[in-house]
């Protein structure tokens, strides 16, 4: 049932791309990617602990984002997603990033960008998991979070441009340039938070990570 849904989605995305209905095509592509990711995440072992941990961290990230909403683009989601990935693995990183995007948008009401934010922040979580051995020190973690801030902005501006702007180089550069101040705010926020609290968060998450996998010794 779910695979049928996915195939239909991908097919319509292809059609939309072919007919130059760019915004729609990208929406469908995003939806397909998210549906695929959800299916992959669901395929894992049924674990109340994992869901509870992902939900808890996503809630913390979402609450932080809502709190900092007056300062545009400064939020703890990127850092929390990355550190979740580092400490708890790929599924946790992607789960925290994507869920935080979805939930915080519910409170902030910016639904239009949600699928792309879910993909971008989920990607940050994945990056954290994949680069985990390199991100144990304060500086490397902070620099990575900073770079991911710019990458996030690039992805979102890219979609924005492809969907709603004329497809010329000029408008592409204009869109990226217009987004630059926000991207700088985002990246600086990530950097500052990771410098101030990065390794502490990672250590703390690793402590709880140990409790995720329990072992019983029978006697």
């Amino acid at each position, binding site marked *: 049932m779910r695979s049928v849904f996915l195939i239909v989605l991908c097919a319509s995305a292809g059609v939309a791309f072919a007919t130059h209905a760019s915004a729609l095509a990208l929406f469908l592509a995003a939806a397909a990617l998210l549906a695929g990711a959800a299916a992959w995440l669901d395929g894992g072992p049924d674990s109340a602990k994992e869901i509870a941990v992902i939900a808890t961290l996503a809630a913390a990230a979402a609450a932080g984002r809502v709190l900092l909403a007056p300062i545009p683009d400064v939020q703890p989601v990127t850092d929390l997603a990355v550190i979740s990935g580092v400490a708890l693995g790929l599924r946790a990183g992607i789960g925290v990033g994507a869920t935080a995007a979805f939930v915080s948008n519910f409170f902030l009401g910016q639904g239009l960008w949600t699928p792309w934010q879910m993909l971008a922040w989920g990607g940050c979580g994945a990056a954290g998991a994949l680069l985990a051995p390199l991100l144990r020190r304060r500086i490397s973690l902070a620099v990575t979070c900073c770079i991911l801030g710019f990458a996030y902005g690039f992805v979102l501006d890219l979609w924005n441009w492809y969907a709603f702007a004329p497809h010329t180089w000029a408008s592409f550069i204009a869109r990226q340039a217009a987004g630059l101040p926000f991207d700088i705010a985002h990246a600086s926020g990530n950097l500052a938070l990771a410098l101030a609290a990065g390794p502490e968060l990672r250590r703390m998450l690793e*402590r709880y990570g140990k409790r995720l996998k*329990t*072992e*019983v010794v*029978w006697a």
Partner: protein
Amino acid sequence: MALARVERLTFAYPESAPALRDVSLEVEPGEVVLLLGASGSGKSTLVRALAGLVPWFHGGRFEGRVEVAGRDTRNTRPTELAGTVATVFQDPEDQVVLGRVEAEVAFGLENVGTSPEAILPLVRRALAAVGIAGLGERSVTEISGGELQRVCLASALALEPELLLLDEPTSQLDAAGAEAFFELALGGDAGVVISEQRPANALRYADRVVFLEGGRIVLDAPREDALAWLAEHRPAWVEVETGLNAARAVGEVACSVEDVSFAYEAPVLNSVSLELRRGEVVALTGPNGSGKTTLAKLVAGLLEPKAGSVVRAGTAAMLLQDPGRYLVRERVDEEVALGSDLVRARAMLAAVGLAGSEARHPRDLSTGERERLALATVLVAEPYVLVLDEPTRGVDPERKHELASLLRAQTGGRATLVVTNDRAFARAVADREVSIVREREPALA
């Protein structure tokens, strides 16, 4: 045939000393068994063993046998036992999964595979049974803590379990709420095992009482015999009303509250006056919602009055409710040193009985140890005025006596205000008692 049987259970959580040692217990169908014991005595572990959560959820070293309704927990996961066994835990906030009351109660029924047509009628029946039939459509964030705990009870009762487990279910409720809760929970014919640190309410309903200490059972007897044994060997657990403390010399005024009014959205305090003197301990009592915590925060300076004045002769410190949640450092000694320095921190740790735990991570401590740590963090700065908000919530009777003695012994030049609902504790700790009533005029008692 026993409903549940525990045979020579010895269990240790990962990387810890055994929490239960050679424990054996039998629960008959329909019986109400009350487990008593201090924090860390193993009562919660025993309850979880009956649910299968120990060892499957927590991991650890498991020796012995636990059998519930004919199923051995060595071969049965807690998710399999669900439905036969249902548990209500301590904090409703940490049990509720979904946002709507009806959906929340239906969650368990869905998980165990109840046929779809039967689900909603069972949900409605359970909500009616606990007296909140009208709350079905409400959001869980809108209802009070007492109502939320009833939702959790409904979720458990809806499963029509053979064995109902209650792990300190009333610690977040006030006296009236606790009484109502037990009435509702024990009305059915399921076997019930209750774990409690405040036995007053539960003792009335228990058929049998089991007392645990250091992971071992030291008493397992029918209620009447148990009461006698407790009165003789563990008198703290059978609460006896003591007289007021002898009056002591007190010094000059440490804090003066004059004609203070405060409102959140609705007015809470209206023209209240209070005086605290150095060297005395004052208990602030009154029903829930009468403004005790608000007055306490005004005394401590955490809130500014809308009218009137609060004058303090020196620094103030306040210990809020559930302080174990708010520990911030990675080492116990650093936690206490936060308001002060390491030398005084170590001394204070010794005074509260935590010497030797300096290097441990605060979140590795047991609940009882965390409360002592929290107390140390407010005492270390040697404040002129110390305010404590419900320090005995969820604390066992022996520890309450310790706390009362500690607060009275350590007064020095300090004025202490203790907000509490616990009459016995108020009598044990205070020199005088001030009562707030809904008319918002304090009356000296």
